[in-house]
C-alpha cells in the first residue's frame, strides 16, 4: 500500500528485521497513527498561524510577529498557554456529554485525514468508497457540536448548537451532490482511482461548465459545513458570544478550535483531490519526481484554504433563515440540474481530455 517511497520501504524492512512478523502490522499501524497525529497537530497550528497572517494582511495589520521568526511559534505558544489553563464548566452541565463533545470533533476530522493520497501511494488507507467515507465521517463532527451546545447548559450555546444542526444537515446535501457530479466523470469513489483518471486532465477541465458550477457549489457548501464565515452562524460572536463553545476553556476549547481548522483543510483537500488533480503536477512537469506530489498537493490545498480565508475576512455573515434559503432554494436545485447536465456531457462524450 505504501511502498513507493524509499523511506517507507526502509522503515518496513527495519521493523521486520527485529520483530516477529505477527506484530509488525500492529507496530506499523501505530507508527502511522502517531505520524498522522503529529501531522494533525502541526497542520492545525500552521493553519491557525496562516489564518492570523492572512487576516492581518486583509486588515492592514502585521499579525503575530513576536514569538520566533515572523511569529512562527506564536500558535505553539498559544497551544502551550491553552494546555496550562484551567478547565472550567457550568455548574449544571451534563458532565459526561460535556467532556465527550470535543472528542467527537477531533476524532472525526482525524479519521477523515487518513484517506487522502498526499502523493503517489503516500496514503494510509486507500478505501474503495473514499468519497463516501469522507462525507459520512465529516457529518459526525456535528454531533460533537450538538452535544457541546446542549450539555453546557447555556442558552447561547444551545442556540449555536441548534443552528449548527440545521446548517450541517442542509449543506451536507450540497457537498454530497456536488461531489457526486464529479463522480460521474471518474466512475469510482476511490480517491487514488479519482486521481488516476485525472492524469488526462484535471476534472475541473475535463468536466468544464458543470464541473466549474459543481466546484463553486462545493466551495460554498464546504465553507458552510465547516461553520466558517460567512456561514459562522454557529459561533456568530456578535450575536451569541462564542456560540456552542461558550462554556469551554483550555484544551477542550482548543480541540474545537483545532478541529475547525482541520475541517477547513479537509474540505480544501477533498476539493484538491476531486477537482484539481490531487498530487498531480500541472501538465505533468514533475512527473519524474514522485515525492514532489506532496508539494503539489499541499500547494493546491492551501490555495483553496486561502480562498476560504478570503471569504471569511471579506463577507458579512448571513442570517440563519437566509442561510437555509440559499441552500434549499438555490444551491440544491442548481445542483440537481447540474448532475443531469454532467450526465448528458459524459453520455455524449463532451468532456475535454488531453
Amino acid at each position, binding site marked *: 500500500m505504501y511502498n513507493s517511497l524509499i523511506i517507507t520501504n526502509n522503515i518496513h524492512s527495519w521493523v521486520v528485521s527485529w520483530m516477529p512478523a505477527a506484530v509488525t502490522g500492529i507496530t506499523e499501524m501505530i507508527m502511522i497513527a502517531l505520524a498522522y497525529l503529529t501531522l494533525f497537530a502541526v497542520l492545525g497550528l500552521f493553519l491557525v498561524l496562516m489564518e492570523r497572517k492572512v487576516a492581518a494582511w486583509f*486588515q492592514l495589520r502585521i499579525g503575530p510577529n513576536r514569538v520566533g521568526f515572523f511569529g512562527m511559534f506564536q500558535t505553539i505558544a498559544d497551544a502551550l498557554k491553552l494546555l496550562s489553563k484551567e478547565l472550567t464548566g457550568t455548574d449544571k452541565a451534563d458532565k459526561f456529554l460535556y467532556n465527550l463533545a470535543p472528542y467527537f470533533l477531533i476524532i472525526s476530522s482525524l479519521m477523515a485525514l487518513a484517506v487522502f493520497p498526499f502523493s503517489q501511494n503516500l496514503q494510509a488507507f486507500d478505501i474503495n468508497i473514499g468519497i463516501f467515507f469522507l462525507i459520512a465521517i465529516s457529518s459526525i463532527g456535528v454531533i460533537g457540536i450538538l452535544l457541546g451546545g446542549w450539555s453546557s447548559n447555556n442558552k447561547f450555546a444551545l442556540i449555536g448548537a441548534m443552528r449548527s444542526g440545521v446548517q450541517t444537515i442542509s449543506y451536507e446535501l450540497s457537498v454530497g451532490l456536488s461531489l457526486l457530479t464529479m463522480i460521474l466523470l471518474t466512475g469510482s469513489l476511490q480517491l487514488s482511482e479519482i486521481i488516476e483518471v485525472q492524469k488526462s486532465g484535471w476534472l475541473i477541465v475535463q468536466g468544464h461548465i458543470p464541473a466549474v458550477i459543481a466546484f463553486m457549489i462545493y466551495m460554498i457548501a464546504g465553507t458552510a459545513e465547516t461553520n466558517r464565515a460567512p456561514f459562522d452562524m454557529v459561533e456568530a460572536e*456578535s*450575536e451569541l458570544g462564542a456560540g456552542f463553545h461558550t462554556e469551554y476553556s483550555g484544551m477542550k476549547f482548543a480541540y474545537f478550535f483545532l478541529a475547525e481548522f482541520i475541517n477547513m483543510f479537509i474540505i480544501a483537500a477533498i476539493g484538491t483531490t476531486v477537482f484539481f488533480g490531487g498530487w498531480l503536477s500541472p501538465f505533468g512537469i514533475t512527473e519524474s519526481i514522485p515525492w514532489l506530489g506532496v508539494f503539489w498537493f499541499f500547494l493546491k490545498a492551501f490555495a483553496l484554504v486561502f480562498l476560504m480565508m478570503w471569504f471569511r475576512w*471579506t463577507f*458579512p*455573515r448571513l*442570517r440563519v433563515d*437566509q442561510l437555509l434559503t440559499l441552500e434549499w432554494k438555490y444551491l440544491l436545485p442548481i445542483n440537481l440540474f447540474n448532475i443531469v447536465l454532467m450526465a448528458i456531457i459524459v453520455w455524449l462524450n463532451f468532456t475535454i481530455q488531453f
Partner: protein
Amino acid sequence: METATINNNFKSEEYFINMGPQHPATHGVLRLLLTIDGEIIKKVEPDLGYIHRSIEKMCERDSYQQIVHLTDRMDYLSSHINNEAVCLAVENALEIEVPERVKVIRTIIDELTRISSHTLWWGVMGMDVGALTSYFYGFRDRELINDIFEETCGARLTMNYNIPGGLMQDIHPNFIKRVKEFIAHFKTKLPEYDKLLTGNIIFQKRTKGVGVLSKEDAIAYGASGPVARGSGYSCDVRKYHPYSALDKVTFNEALHTEGDSYARYLVRIQEMWESISIIEQLIDNIPEGDFKVATKAVIKLPKGEYYQKVETARGELGVYIISTGGKNPHRMKFRSPGLSNLSLLNHITVGGKIGDLVATMATIDIVVPDIDR
C-alpha cells in the same frame, strides 16, 4: 404526587436570554432582556444604569467651567460637540458673542468629530454583521483624526477643547495643513467603504427591510439624528437651529425614506460626505482673531432657563439649564439622543431574528454612557 399532564408536546415555548451587560453586540455595558421563541424575538427590554454616574447631580455642585469637562464623558465619541452644547448655552445666557475664529474652528472640529464617530460606527457595524475587516478600515482613518485632535489640544478622545467664551488655546500651526491632508486622504478612502460593505449582497440582505421604523414612529418615539433621518424625518439641528459657523456653510441634510437599517446606514455614509464638504468650505476661511473672550473667573448665569440643542453624531443633544443666579446650575438636564433612540428598539425589532436585532442595534448606534449619563 399528581400525574403530569402531557398536553404541551410540540408546543413552542418562549424563553429568556440575557444579552449583556458584557456582550460584543451591545457596545458597552448595556443589558438587553430578550424574550425569544426559537430564533424569533418577542420582546426586548433594555436594562440600563450599568454606567450611570449621575452627571446631572454632579453638575449641580460644579461651576460651569467644570461642567464642560463632565460632558465629554457622556457621548465620548462626539465629545467636542457635547462640550460645545454647554458652552453655547452658557454663552447665550451671558450674552457673550464669541469671535468668528472660534465659531469656525468649533464647526470644523465638530465635523471632524462626526466623521471620526461615523468611521468608528462603520467599522463596528461591519463587525456586528460579521465582516470583521471593516473594523480596521474604519480605525485606520479615525486614527488620523485623533492625531489631529491630539496635536490641537493634547487629547484624542475626551478633548475639553471648548471653554465658555471660546477655546482653551489656539489651533496648532499645522492644523490647517493636516486637516487638508486628511480630507484628501479620506476622499479616496470613503469609496473603499462602499466597495467593502455597502455594495455587498449579503450586507444588503442583512440590512434591507430590517428594523423598519416609520416616520410617524420616529417622531413619536423622539428619534433624532441618523435614525430619524433614515425614516425620512428631517430633523437636522444644524439646519433648523444653526449654531457656531453652520449658518455660513451650505450642505444637504442626508435623508432616506425607507426607514430600515440600510437607510440608516446610507444616511451616515452620506453624512460623512457632507461633513467633508462643510470642512472644505471652512478650512481655508478661518478668520484671524482671538481664540476666546475673557469671562469672569466665576461664571454666574442670570436667573432663568436656557436650552441649547446641537446635533451630535448620534442625534439631537439638548442641554437644559435652570439657573437661580448662582455659580452652579439649579438643575441641569442633558437630553441625550441615545435614550430616545434606544426606547424604540423594542418597537422595531420584535418579530425579527437575533441577527436582525444585532444589525438594527448597530444602525441605531448606541453609546451607553450617553444613555446612562
